[in-house]
Structures are given as structure tokens and as C-alpha cells.
């Protein structure tokens, strides 16, 4: 009971701060728009080529935005030594991880939905018809990305060269999530039924379960001095 209250208050605090410090969210959204331009310039105006690349680009966008967003998720705790305060709270520290993780998932999902809508509009892809199965892929992929991302962000926030180390640690670990989500998205956009990507969904669900469990179990060692 206390555990759930503590996880909830961390989530409440993070979302409240995120809502008040609008500049960060705005900058992240603007970054997403810029990504769209960048992809367009890199691939040229050929519609077919763009359409073929959409699943990969979409997830590349999610990952880049996720790296920026997740990498910041513990920076606020450094101000005024709040980090220390969290360590001094008695009880199970994994509640903090859980709250942070859910908060990060909510924020990433918001950015991803916006990015997907922009993709649909600018690149003229129909993301609406397979929206429900795509949503499932998106949810599972986001949890995978955020679970390891939250853990590693907590770690690298306290290390030199944080901006560099965070992606260098996170990206190779996330290769399975990227492969699974891109492959599944590709199949769904080609109009294949959900059953055809069931193996990818199972892999993602299994990976999420493993990552979240490891995160819950090891977070106290990341936080602890």
C-alpha cells in the first residue's frame, strides 16, 4: 500500500514538474518536427522510397526523441541534491523506479503519438487503419525502451560524459526492441494481420518483463551510495 503510494507520488511529481516546465516538452516536440524534415531531406522526395522506409524512420524518430527525453529524466533530481533525499527515504527504492518508469512511458507515448500523426500527415502513410495493433506494438516497444532507459539514465546522470555514455550504453541493449518493433510495424503497414507478428509481440512482451524485473531488482544499487 505504502509502496503504491510512493510510486504514485513520484509519478505525480514528475508529471507535474514536466507540465510546469513546458519549455522541455516544447523543445522535444519541435525536435520531432525537425526530424521529419531531416528524414525527408536525407531520402529525397520519392514517395515510394519514403513509404518503404517509414517503419524504420518512425522508430528511429521514437528512439532519438526517447534518448533525449529519458536521458533527462533524472537531471531534475540533481538540483538541490534531491537525489540524496530520495536515497534517504526509508523503504523499498524500486517504488521510485516504478514511478519514474510509468512517468517516462506516459511522456514517451505522448511524443510518439504526436510524431506518428506528423508522419501520417507529411509522408501520406495510413497509420489509422492498423491503429489498434500498431498501438500495441508501440506500447510494448515503449515499455522496453523506457525500462532499460530509466535504469541507465539514473546511472549515467551521476557520471562524467553523461550525454555520450547514455546512448552508448542504451542503444546496443535496445537492438532487439528496435528489430522487433520495426519488423512488426512494417508487417502491419503492409496490411498483414496481427497474428503474423505474434512472434515479435511475444518477444517484446518477454523482453519487457525481463527488463522491468531487472530494473526493479537493481535500481536500489544504482541509487544507493
Amino acid at each position, binding site marked *: 500500500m505504502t509502496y503504491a503510494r510512493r510510486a504514485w*507520488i513520484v509519478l505525480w511529481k514528475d508529471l507535474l514538474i514536466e507540465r510546469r516546465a513546458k519549455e522541455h516538452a516544447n523543445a522535444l516536440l519541435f525536435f520531432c518536427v525537425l526530424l521529419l524534415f531531416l528524414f525527408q531531406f536525407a531520402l529525397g522526395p520519392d514517395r515510394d522510397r519514403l513509404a518503404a522506409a517509414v517503419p524504420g524512420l518512425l522508430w528511429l524518430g521514437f528512439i532519438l526523441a526517447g534518448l533525449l527525453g529519458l536521458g533527462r529524466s533524472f537531471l*531534475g533530481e540533481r538540483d538541490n541534491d534531491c537525489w*540524496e533525499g530520495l536515497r534517504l527515504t526509508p523503504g523499498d527504492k524500486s517504488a521510485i523506479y516504478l514511478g519514474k518508469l510509468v512517468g517516462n512511458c506516459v511522456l514517451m507515448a505522448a511524443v510518439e503519438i504526436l510524431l506518428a500523426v506528423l508522419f501520417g500527415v507529411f509522408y501520406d502513410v495510413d497509420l489509422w487503419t492498423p491503429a489498434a495493433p500498431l498501438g500495441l506494438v508501440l506500447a510494448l516497444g515503449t515499455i522496453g525502451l523506457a525500462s532499460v532507459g530509466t535504469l541507465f539514465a539514473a546511472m549515467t546522470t551521476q557520471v562524467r560524459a553523461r550525454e555520450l555514455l547514455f546512448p552508448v550504453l542504451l542503444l546496443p541493449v535496445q537492438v532487439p526492441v528496435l528489430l522487433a518493433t520495426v519488423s512488426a510495424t512494417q508487417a502491419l503497414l503492409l496490411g498483414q494481420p496481427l497474428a503474423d507478428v505474434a512472434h515479435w509481440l511475444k518477444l517484446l512482451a518477454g523482453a519487457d518483463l525481463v527488463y522491468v524485473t531487472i530494473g526493479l531488482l537493481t535500481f536500489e544499487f544504482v541509487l544507493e551510495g
Partner: protein
Amino acid sequence: MITARDLRKVYGSSRVLDGVSLELGSGQCLALLGPNGAGKTTLLRILATLLRPTAGSLRIGDADALREPERARAEIGMVAHGSYVYEDLTARENLRFWETMRGGDASAGRLAAALAQVELDHVADERARTFSAGMKRRLGLARVLLGRARLLLLDEPFTGLDRRGRKWVSEFLAGFKAGGGAAVVATHSFGDGLGVADRVAILGGGRLLMDRPAAELSAEALHRLYESLTDAVEAGP
């Protein structure tokens, strides 16, 4: 409240703490003096269970703080430089967050009472970003009060405060002691330290150079002692 034996902290080849032992009973306040780099903050952080000593033993209340830091933490209230304040939350929200994290009762009535006690009730719903250093420190003290900590650890509580602010902190400490709490105050400020403390300890080169009842010392005598002791350490190897 505190029983520390032979605490050592070694970073690579540098000994930040080189065998510090101290005891502190309930209702007592210890002022910890010492030049920069003497190990004050390190000692305070070890007492707060934020840092693990390389060797030595530490009891906080009736808990072995090294084995069961969780039990010790229930007793400890720490107010360091940053006071653990989230700038984008209001004073009330900050207290609500920390008290809930501690697993305590964060009801509106308790929060309001704590805010009134540290005289922040008139700015309870303003963001901490607009607060002065003194107000943030008071917010930190309100957090400690809410948590019903019995051991208060303060790192440089007088720095950056005007005379009124320093007096306020001293009075707060007196009240805290009167309620049966123990406090350790790491400070540069001799006068304020001597004013609130029952005992004064001087830390230099990672050792306790002196630990005496404050009543025996005048400000001047303390100053002379401090100079001679810390000079001796600096002149040494």
C-alpha cells in the same frame, strides 16, 4: 543517539576520514568545525547513511546504521545545501512529496501546521523557485519536522543567511533539542556554532582534533584553539 567508532573513509590513496569516534546523546547538539577539506561533509554524509565508511562502526538510535540503514533512516533528518527542494513544486507540494515518500501521513492539516511552524504559511502555494536560500532551508526543516526525525544533521545551515535568518535557525535548533532531538551541525561559523551547541568538535586532516563542552569555551578561546590545531595539521605531513 549516535555512537560512532573509528570511522574511516579512503578514496584511492587519500584518507578523508582517518579514525573518527564520537558519541551524541538525545537532547544534545554537536557543532562540527573545521577548514575546507577537513572531512566535515564526509563525516556528516556517513552519519546520514549517504556514504559508506571504509571501516568503522556506526549506531543511530538503536539501529546498526551500516547493516540496517533503512531503520536508521527513519530517525534521521538531513538538511544539506540544497535542502532537497524541487524548484518547480510549491512549498506545500514539496512537503507532500517527501512525507509521502517517507511513508508518513501527508494530510493537508499536518502540512499546513509544519509550514506554519517554519513561517512559510504565507507562501505555501508559491513555487520554490521564487524562494531565498533561507526559505528553502526552512522548507527543509519543515520536511524534517513532518518526518518526526530524532537526529537532525545540518550542513552549513548558517551560510548565506542574514542575521535574522541565522537567529531563526538557532532558535529552531534550541526548540528541536528541547523536544528531545539530537543535532549535528557542520559549520564554518564559530559564533553561531558555539551559540547552539552543547559540544564543539574540530575536525582536521580527517581526525577529531578536539571535542569539548561548549560551556568551557569562549568564542575567543575557541578561535585560538582552532587556529593552532588546524595549523598544526597543515604543517604536518
